[in-house]
């Protein structure tokens, strides 16, 4: 995984936590999500779908759930190549990663907006 990351210098860090990172590739117009031991490529639609499915998981309810089911969620995204099988702790970490990423993308958008208007 580390070798993949060093090869690609055109990736920009969008957001990083101790559990993972998301990079943007301008050339391919996509993002690379480094999480849960793999680096997965997401285009715009799929990244939004990933965010939606992660945000939809009711973490509080899952924590209070006392049945003996294993505490794992499967995140399957329609029309995307990736699927995550995550524990609750990982889901919280992924949610944090995505939240940070979208704040940064939004910020980037605002900067672009101001630059265009300022011209």
């Amino acid at each position, binding site marked *: 995984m580390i070798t993949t990351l060093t090869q690609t210098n055109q990736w920009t860090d969008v957001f990083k936590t101790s559990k993972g990172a998301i990079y943007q590739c301008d050339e391919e117009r996509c*993002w690379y999500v480094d999480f849960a031991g793999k680096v997965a490529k997401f285009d715009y639609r799929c990244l939004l779908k990933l965010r939606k499915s992660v945000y939809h998981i009711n973490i509080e309810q899952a924590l209070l759930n006392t049945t003996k089911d294993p505490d794992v969620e499967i995140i399957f995204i329609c029309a995307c190549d990736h699927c995550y099988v995550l524990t609750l702790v990982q889901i919280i970490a992924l949610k944090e990663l995505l939240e940070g990423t979208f704040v940064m993308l939004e910020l980037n958008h605002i900067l672009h907006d101001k630059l265009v208007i300022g011209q």
Partner: protein
Amino acid sequence: MKDLLRIKSLISTEIESLLNQQVKKEAYSSSVYLSMASWCNRNGYDFSSDYFFKQAEEERLHQLKFYKYILDMGGNSISPEITGIKQEYNSFREVFEEALDQEISVTNAIKNIYARCLKEQDFVTVEFLNWFLKEQREEEYKARRALELFEVIGEEGTGRWQIDKHVGEIKYNG
């Protein structure tokens, strides 16, 4: 870093979700009017029934207008699920009272999207919404006029028959 969000879509996720809510609201309006058309027809108010059939169709067109706009801007339109449509009314007058309530709530919803657009400086969507603001002027006018007939004509005697006849003639030349 390129602004990929902007490249893919002209509208923000917030605006997109507000517009999708509006799609649902218009679809709901259409179903409500269809139910009113049925009630009026069953109770012998033929002109009002026709009036509501026409309104139902208009609301469907409004729904599609929002639906297609979202797609054209690079967003994701969501086909809404509509439930909880009232099928029975207590009186002829109640039908028109609720029709006006419905239009007022639609106007408010559009104003709310408009405010959000201004905040984001999304002037493209503002321009799109202008058509709807004008439309709401007409919609509220017609609903209010219809309700006024109950005051002007009165419900006694052949009053309701008269009111029904006049509902078919309401026009707005704004």
